[in-house]
Each structure stands twice: as C-alpha cells, then as structure tokens.
C-alpha cells in the first residue's frame, strides 16, 4: 500500500505540471478555488482561451478516443491532471457539462454530421453546451417532464419550462429532453433533441438561491422551432438517450473544492472560547471534531481507493456513491457548529472569522444535500444498486403520462 504514482503516472504528472507552470500562476497555499463565480463575459472569454490551450497541449478530453479528438488517455491520467491543475489558478470550468455529458451523448446517439459539426468546437472551447432535463415538477423524477414538442413537418415546436440549468445564459447549445407523446407510459413518450440556445422563444432567467448564488437558470420555451435533424435517437426513445447522459454524470470525478473542512474547524476551535476555556479543550467539541475528521478522511480515502482501481485499469467499486450523502451533512453540521463557536458573531455573514465563509457554507449546504440527487434518492440508489434491494413500489408504470397528470390534478 502506498500513494505513489506508477512510473507512467509520474511521467504524465511531470508533463502536466510543466504545462501548468508555463501557463498559469501557482495557487497560494491555503487558498481554495472559488465555488461560485459570476460567469461574466470576461470570465467566459478566458475560460475559452484556456480550453484551447489545454487541448493544444493534450490535456483536454484526456480519456476520449483519439478518433473523436481526445487524447486516448486513461481515467487516472485525467485525475492526475485535475490534481495538478487544482494547484494553479485557472479559469472556472464552463465546459464540464458539455464535454462531460452532452458531447458524449451526441457521439453515442448522433449522426456523423452531428459529430463533424459539433465535437471540435466544443473541444476547442468555441462552443459551450448546457443540459436541459429537470423541470419544476420533475426533479428527482426526471422522466416526469411536461415540456412538450409537437411535430410540424420537418420541425418540432417546443413549449414548456426547464429548471436548474447550469450556464444556460452563456451556452451556445443545449441538450433538451421533451415529451412528444403523453398517451403512452411516462418513460416511453420522451424524445431527445439539441438546439441552438439563441433560437427564438428561448429565455433563460437566473434562479437566486438561498446561498445568494445564481449559477442555475430557469429556461422558458415559447414556440421554439427545432428541426427534426437535431433529434438524437428515435422518437419516443429519449429516456434511453437521457440515461447515457446521466450515466456520464455519474462518471464525472468530482473533487469538492472551496469547502471549509476539519482543518478550518480545528483552527476556529483553537482560537474560540466556550465557558471561559478554549473551545478545543471542551470534550463535546473534541468529540464532534473527531466525528467530522472520521467522515472527511473516510471520504478522502474512499476516493483514493477509487483512484487505485482506475490506476490498475479496474472498474471502481460502488463505494464512491457514498460521497455526496456524507459530505452534504458534514458541510452543514461543521458549519453550524462553527457558527456556534463564534457566539453571537456566528450570525454575521460578511465578516468575522473566515469572512462569512462558514455562514455561506451553512446556507449552501442546505442546497448541496439536494442538488444532483437528494440524500433520499442517493440512499435509494445505494440500497438498490449496491445492496440489491427492491425498488420502491411504482404506481406510474402501467398508465399513460396523461392519466398520471389527470389523476394528480384530481386530488
């Protein structure tokens, strides 16, 4: 057991580091990449330039086959690069969804023409993609979407609303899941398209979150015209196509950044007082800190176990599914107790220890436990896919979507 690189990994790491040293400033020790940034025009421009540079140097689409413009590298190379890049100040990733989810879907389900036209500009950073699946009434239950597309000759006319769309307002293209037939079972009447986000009738509005951030959008569709040539997969087969996208979402290797953790809590506990003694001397605080440590280190080493599997060319086990459900609650509990250590100043959100970072984390954690799969859905996934337990009883399997909707309306 060791944390060492294999010779190949070490060589790749050196190459990556050399590229980064030459092209980006090193991050100061102790600082963290910011999690929520305004994606203004300047930022988008610099992100595009950085993507082009990475591609040229061989560090974009590392795991993609060379045939589609990737580097033909391994997942562990992707991770090594990400570890190195995290030590430098680089523009925020605005391509993660496009390159991580949309384009792989296009490659699998699109035509040769689609690939010829769209893969290259996405790789070079010229075109940004977003993913339009969730709806106000279809969150955990993605297949419950209501946005309708009706056939009109060679075109489809789309009306409805999407929500939780990251980057809709600066994206060039979007992957769009719509209902084309309400008179069949819920999962059967869906079809997948992609569209130009500048199309007439598309309107993106930012959603203000509790945490103050607004990375997500609501997107409204009013008589938007999409040519049938932009359909991915057959009519009514949208759910199968969507599963490809969602599967790629799960493969994305997330390293949570910008999170206040055990070290921050320890520092705070050392400099705070409880009942006239340093908080770190209080057994209750020590107990909680130990619990935070065990969870946080447990997640870290769970990630290392996954990387080891990748490094050996194996498929990682299901253990990484625990990450979000543990870290959401950990973020929330740690931030909450930190605020308590600050006493009344714990309420102050803009200054004080950490300049309000604990307070922002406490607000943000409430959303982190929901976004991208609620704690409840994730526990279901662990129980069903890892432990092999039965699915919940489904009452929406043998009825049409229209019947479901009218049953709901009647209650």
């Amino acid at each position, binding site marked *: 057991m060791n944390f060492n690189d294999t010779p190949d990994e070490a060589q790749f790491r050196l190459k990556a580091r050399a590229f980064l040293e030459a092209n980006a400033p090193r991050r100061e020790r102790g600082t963290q990449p910011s999690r929520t940034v305004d994606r203004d025009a300047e930022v988008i421009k610099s992100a595009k330039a950085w993507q082009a540079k990475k591609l040229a140097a061989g560090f974009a689409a590392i795991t993609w086959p060379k045939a589609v413009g990737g580097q033909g590298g391994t997942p562990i190379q992707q991770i090594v690069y990400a570890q190195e890049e995290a030590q430098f100040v680089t523009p925020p990733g605005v391509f993660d969804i496009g390159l991580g989810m949309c384009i792989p879907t296009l490659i699998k389900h699109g035509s040769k023409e689609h690939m010829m036209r769209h893969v290259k500009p996405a790789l070079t950073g010229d075109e940004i993609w977003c993913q339009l699946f*969730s709806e*106000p009434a279809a*969150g*955990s*239950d993605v297949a*419950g979407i209501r946005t309708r597309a009706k056939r009109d000759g060679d075109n489809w006319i789309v009306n409805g609303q999407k*929500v*939780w769309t990251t980057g809709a307002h600066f994206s060039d293209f979007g992957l769009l899941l719509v209902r084309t037939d309400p008179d069949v079972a*819920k999962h059967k009447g869906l079809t997948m398209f992609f569209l130009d986000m500048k199309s007439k009738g598309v309107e993106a509005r930012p*959603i*203000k*979150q*509790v945490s*103050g951030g607004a990375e997500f959008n609501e997107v409204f569709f009013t008589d938007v015209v999409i040519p049938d040539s932009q359909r991915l997969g057959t009519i009514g087969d949208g759910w199968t196509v969507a599963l490809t996208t969602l599967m790629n979402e799960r493969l994305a290797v997330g390293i949570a950044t910008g999170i206040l953790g055990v070290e921050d809590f320890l520092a705070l506990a050392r400099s*705070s*007082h*409880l*009942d*006239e003694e340093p908080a770190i001397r*209080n057994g*209750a*605080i020590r107990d909680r800190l130990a619990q935070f440590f065990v969870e946080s280190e447990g997640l870290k080493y769970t990630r290392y176990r996954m990387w080891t599997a990748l490094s050996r060319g194996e498929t990682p086990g299901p253990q990484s599914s625990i990450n979000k459900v543990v870290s959401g609650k950990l973020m*929330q509990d740690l931030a*909450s107790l930190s*605020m*308590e*250590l*600050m*006493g*009344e*100043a*714990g*309420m*102050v*959100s*803009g*200054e*004080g*220890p950490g300049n*309000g970072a604990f*307070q922002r984390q*406490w*607000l943000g954690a*409430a*959303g982190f*436990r*929901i*976004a991208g799969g*609620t704690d*409840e859905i994730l*526990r*279901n996934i662990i129980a069903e896919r890892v432990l092999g337990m039965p699915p*919940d009883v*489904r*009452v*929406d399997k043998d*009825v049409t979507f229209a019947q*479901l909707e009218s*049953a709901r309306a009647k*209650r």
Partner: protein
Amino acid sequence: MEFDFSDDQKLLKDQVQRFLHDKSPLTVVRRVMEGSETYAADVWRGLADLGALGVAVPEAFGGMGLGALELCVVAEEVGRSCAPVPFQSSVCLATDAVVQFGSDAQKAKWLPLLVAGKAIGTLAVAEGARRKPASQLATTFANDKLTGLKTPVLDGEAATLAIVLAGGPAGPTMVLVDLTANGVSRKRVETIDPARKQAEIVFEGAAADVLGERGAGARQLDTLHQRAAVVAAFEQIGGAEAALYMARDFALERYAFGRQIGSYQAIKHKLADAYIKIELARSNAYYGAMMLASGGADLPLAAAASRVAGIEAYEYASKENIQTHGGIGFTYAADPHLHYRRSRLLALTLGGSTVWKNRLVTALEKRNAA
C-alpha cells in the same frame, strides 16, 4: 394535575395567532428582508395594541400585569409567524431587564414606553468575533459614561434603548443607555437572517445609568438569559411547527414517480422525527414556563432543558423542511429558508447548544448533590 395553559392563556394565544396570521404573513418577512425597514413597524404597533408587548409588565407601568405563562404563549405565535419584529430583544430581554433590575425611576420612565411600542429595547453584549468571557469586556462604564463598541446587536438599528454589559472598576456592570442621545453611532451588520436587522453600535462617552447592581452584570446577564431561554423555546417551538407543517403541506402536494412524496417513508419518518422533537421541546418548555412563572428552584435546569430541546427542534424542522422541498427548497423565492435562517438566529442569540448542555448538567449535579 394542571400542566397546561389555562383557557384565558389559550384565548390570548389565539388572538395573537390570528393577528399575526392576518398582518404578518411571510410576505412581510420578505418585505423587511429586502427593504430598508429595520423592522415591521405595522406589526409591532399591532402587537402593542393587543397588549402583547407588556403581558408580563405590571399594570402600574402600563402592562397587562399577567405573567411568564402569557409571555410564553405570545412568543410561540411570534415564532410561528417568523415575524420581523424586535420581540426577543425588546420584550424578552430589555423590558424584562428593567422589570427585574430597574429602579422605580427607571421602570417609570421606560416601561410604559416599551409596553406601548414607543421605545424599542435591546441587549448589547457581544463585542465582535468569537466568544469572550465577561471579565474581558472592552466596553467600559465610568463616571456615568459608556465607551466602547458592541457588535452584533440584534435590532441595534431599531432600538432606542440599550441594556449594555460593560466593564468597569467594580467589574462587569449592566447599564441602560438612551440610544437617541449623544455619543451613540451605529451601522448595519449583515447577518444570516436579514429579516432581523443587526447593528454595530459605537459608544463614545454616551450617558448611561447603572441597571441593577454595580459589578453584578455577569450574574444579572445569566438571570436574563435563563429567563429568556424559556420564552425563546416557545418562539422556537412555534417556528418549528410552522416549518413542519410547511413541509407536510408540500409533501402532500408534490408528486414524484406518480405518488405524493408524502407517501414515501423517507419523508414520512423525517417529518415524524420533527414532530417528536417538537413534542419533546414543548413538554420541556412547559416545565420551564411553570418554573419561570412560579419562581421554582428547578428554573436553571428547566431553562437549560427548554433551550437545548428548543434549538434542536427548530434546527431539525427547518433544515428538513428545505430538504423536503427538494430543488424548490433552496431557491430564494421559496419560503423554507426564512425559518432555516430564523432557527439559527434563535440558536445563537442567547448562547448555543453546547454551552447550555453544559449548564444543564451543572444544574443537575447541583440538584442531585442537594
């Protein structure tokens, strides 16, 4: 066995509940959160008209001359409505401080104003980041003048009267300061619950009066906090119930996979747990109220238990209300975050759970030694 509020007390509760339901819906909370008001003056005036600001103040000073039990039922309704008014600062802390420790002159001057809502009081203790022992206060009181900086002060902008804990030659002393007089300046401090504005207050030789006993400030603060802890528990219980029923209602309306999400055990059991925590808090708080009203020897223990259970219930109910709402729950436009914020405010103003759990055990040790 008469371990419940009386019919008269329940009548008062209903009256306050109806008023707040009509006049202080969550849209009013948002109005204060986002606007320039320091508090909802219309709601405050209405509460004053109902007598709710002076239920526990003697009639001689304009109050209703009732007691702690009546204050508790009012608090529960203020909590339920999440009302953006200086209830805890002015009624539960400042007014109570004058009632408990004030001289006849101080009472005669301030209580009628406070009861009528014409003066707003607050308690100013904190001095910036991190907790400090009372013996290390930088704000000082000498020669009837107060000098120093207090922050954050809840309702510090709206308040016209502050009860300030200050250092001085005799030790920590509680003083009374007219905030409209010279030598006082304030600025807003941003906090996690913008519906309840807070301020930094700078005293530069502001005129001040000793409240209670010189040098007894720390002990007086403990007394006030202990009393307010019981009342705050009711405010927390009201808020927790509001959050629980907001979650329940949403769970009945929202469908996923063809079913109301309220039919899933993950949601049902989560809300059952919230109900359990609320009932435990309520039962503890009833005993706290009884001790507060009767001046019983168990007050230190019962107040600590009320506070610990109250914090836990509101925190759990409000955060799981967001969770039950799913994606909608963490949008600013939806209401669950209003209670999430308020639950944290109420958990921090009188000292957090760890401190009170420790106090609880100290009181328990004392009782069991006796």
